[in-house]
């Protein structure tokens, strides 16, 4: 940790290095595509792949509502993991109170899942 630098300097350097690393790879690939291997788009190449058949009709079909239920229930896990990550990182320095608060938070989310499950939202009908 550089003693005189800004305490968060290492974080900025770390983020910069990560971004540069990713962008350089993508840039190299873009460069390669432009200079050496030409792009060859075509009507059938860009057509949607439908088990090797020409796709008929359009895909803008009204989906069943059951799919949205799955999306909403997924949120339970999504929110949960967003808060679990920092909790896990700082786990060793936490006091008991913080731990209990986290467990209550987890309990609430799991209780939501159990309620949805019993209501039959997961069963496809």
């Amino acid at each position, binding site marked *: 940790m550089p003693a005189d630098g800004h305490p968060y300097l290492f974080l900025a350097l770390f983020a910069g290095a990560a971004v540069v690393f990713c962008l350089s790879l993508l840039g190299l690939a873009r460069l390669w595509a432009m200079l050496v291997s030409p792009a060859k788009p075509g009507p059938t190449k860009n057509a949607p792949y439908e*088990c*090797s058949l020409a796709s008929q009709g359009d895909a803008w*079909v009204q989906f069943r509502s059951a799919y949205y239920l799955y999306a909403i229930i997924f949120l339970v896990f999504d929110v949960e993991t967003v808060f679990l990550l920092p909790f896990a990182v700082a786990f060793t320095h936490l006091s008991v109170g913080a731990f209990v608060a986290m467990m209550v938070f987890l309990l609430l989310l799991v209780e939501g899942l159990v309620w949805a499950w019993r209501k039959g939202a997961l069963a*496809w009908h």
Partner: protein
Amino acid sequence: MRPDSAEPDLSALSTGDLVVESPAAVPAPPPPATSGFELTPKPATAPDADRGLLEVAIGPHHPSTHGVFRLNAVLDGERIVRFKPVFGYLHRNHEKIGENGTYLSAMPYTDRLDYFCSLSNNWAYALAVEKLAGLAVPERADYIRIITAELTRIQNHAALIGFLLQELGAMGTPLMYAFREREKILDLFEALTGARMMCNYLRFGGCRCDLPAGWLEECRRVVEGLPRFFDEFENLLSTNEILMARTQGIGVLPPELAVSAGVTGPMLRASGVNYDLRKVDRYGLYDRFEFRVPLGEHGDVYDRYMVRILEMRESAKILQQALREVPGGPIVDPKVKLRNFRPKAGEAYGRLESPKGELGFYLISDGSTNPYRYRIRPPSFINLTILEDMCQGLTLQDALVILGAVDIVMGEVDR
């Protein structure tokens, strides 16, 4: 939209691609199980689009259609409303080539019919020609035919269970076990006939060449290892909760519908109908060996899986009895001419219990060297007749598992 009058108007035939016939508003209730199965055409109602039905083609190039087989599925979300198969992507004109060639030159083509079980295809064709021309088969040849047919049945059922588990998502593990066993049996076939999959080994009235030296000991060694393989397979699969949850109660086939739809083989016996050609027709020397025919009670996919496992065990028992003493003597009826073989004019229908079901050859001869009509009764093609009835109202994943359990091989389905 086709008028659903009884008289099919030839000019307005709907396209074979996506059938635009729309289903009943509520999925048609499964037909009442009368003695025979009266099929009434489905009444036409509102077109699909505004009721949120998705027409999708599970097309010729699809990982879980066991070859180039296509299904036009009309889906209500995940539920199947209509499930129309489209065939013909591997229609290789087997019967036209059979009619243009002599009787002998059709024999290597029978290997390519159901390319998992070339030796039982050969035997079915040889059986039909022997019935047509009235030939006798020496005892040693019949023993060799039974041994090779039962080995074929074991490697076919093992490979099928491997592919069925691949449908259920067990990518590769059971298939690896099954193919490891299959390779041992293919080595036996290569040592005996010269080719792994395309044996072309049987001739009318017997076999082409005798057992090479040391083949019987090698065969006994492989057959002794089979029960250990079956136990290993059963430990791995039979009591697996995921397999049971995904296959029990799925794709139930009532026995009357199975009989009326001409379903044969393990699928029929899984519905509880006791009809095994080895016991019914008593062809070959099967009545000399005692073995049992496994029957299922519920007729669902788990029973089909279990019937095939038990059939493999019964085949291993037959092999142990047959390999105990193979009689000596000639392996082919010397009177039969190899070239310009001309059976008398007439017709004959020979059939046997292939691993997929009843494989039949219907031959009409007009006295010349070429058969006048050469017809194959393909078991997996006819077992697909009631695929839509079994999948009615189930989700797409279960329908593909049911398709996997029907055991179709496209070479035989499309011929």
